[in-house]
Structure formats: C-alpha cells, structure tokens
C-alpha cells in the first residue's frame, strides 16, 4: 500500500526530505519505521531504538503498534517544543 510521509524540524533537515510517497508492505507504524531504518545512514541513526521521535497518523500522535491505513498521511518528527 501507499502512504504519504512527512518529516518536520530537525528530522526534515537531517533526512533532507520534507515529504515523500512510500510503498509499504506491513500495516503498522513499526513496519514503516523499520522500512525507513533499513535505508541506513541518517535514517538508521535517527530512527534507531531509543531515539526520541514521534509519529502521527492522519494527524493524531500514535504508538508504534498503530495501524497505518492505505493512503494515510504519516508524519515523523522530534518531540515538540512550542509555546
């Protein structure tokens, strides 16, 4: 299935990418993160276990077990620092 993946702030800069289309084999956030980690380099580094990042599916923050529906908007970003 296809998902649209957005990156923000430090992760956008590190990945050199604000948005991309990803073809995903699995169905969960964990599957998507594993696919991106497998790219190696900054992807493996920033998305390694223990690194602090957040994932939103269709604009709601979710846990790694959350399902990613086909056509979803997924966003990956650092912990927020507004206010």
């Amino acid at each position, binding site marked *: 299935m296809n998902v649209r993946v957005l990156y923000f702030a430090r992760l956008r800069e590190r990945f050199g990418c604000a948005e991309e289309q990803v073809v995903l084999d699995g169905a969960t956030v964990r599957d998507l993160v594993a696919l991106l980690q497998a790219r190696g380099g900054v992807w493996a580094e920033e998305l390694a276990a223990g690194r602090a990042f957040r994932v*939103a599916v269709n*604009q709601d923050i979710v846990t790694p077990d959350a399902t990613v529906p086909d056509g979803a908007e997924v966003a990956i970003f650092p912990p*927020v620092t507004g*206010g």
Partner: protein
Amino acid sequence: MKIVVQTEAFDLGTEVDALRASRTDIGAIASFVGLARDMNEGSGVSAMTLEHYPGMTEKALAALVDDARARWSLLDVTVVHRVGRLLPGDPIVLVAVASSHRGEAFAACEFIMDALKTRAPFWKKEETPEGERWVEARASDDAAAARWSES
C-alpha cells in the same frame, strides 16, 4: 472559542477584550503570554524560527482545549500561537480562559499551556553565536503535563 496559528503579532488587551465582549457573567479571566527570550541553555539567542505542522496543529490545539472544557466549567477560551521568525521580547503564544470562578480559570489556563508544550506540533530553532540549533524538548515540560493526569 478562538484558536489561531498566525505569523503576525497579537495583542493581549485586544484578545481579552474580545473574550469579555459585553458579557456580565464572567468573574475571572486567567491569561498567559509566552515570550521569546534573549538567553536559553546558557547561550545568547538573537532570533528564533517556529515551524509547525499545518492541519495537525489546529487539530491538536482544538483537542486540548476540548479536554480543558470537559474538565472545568469554562465560559470561553482563546489560544493564539505564532509561527515564523521571532526576535527576543516578541510574544509567541497567548492563552486566555474565562470562567465564573478564578480557580477554574487558573487551572484551565495552566493545563492548556502544559498540554500545548507536549502535544501541539511546533518546533523552535534558535540563532545563537555558535550557530543555529533546534531546541530540545524538556523533561520538565513532560513532568508539568503529567501532573494533570495524576489528579
């Protein structure tokens, strides 16, 4: 209820006057303004740029204001958050809460700020003499937000 994300400056007096309008049932208005400081983590900060996630930001702010309204008896709420480049002394965020009673106004205003700090997708990048840097999330903000789930 007013929730806005904007690049322009806001004015506390104008926002609170709008909240009061010609109502006579409001007993208490608690408000908060967060400002850009010239120092952070021991470095001078000459400017900062606020990035956000358009769409999710408004949704997240509305959700946390709804949480506050479910928890306390509130008459009205205004939240304004700026994005873009800001200088020290510039206002960043405004939260104003109107209620019949002061305890509820204070609690809801502080709750909304604490929740915003951990749930609304904004990120700050600071310009310092050592170069640009992304602000790191603070454990103290997580702790402040967690207080509200304990009670």
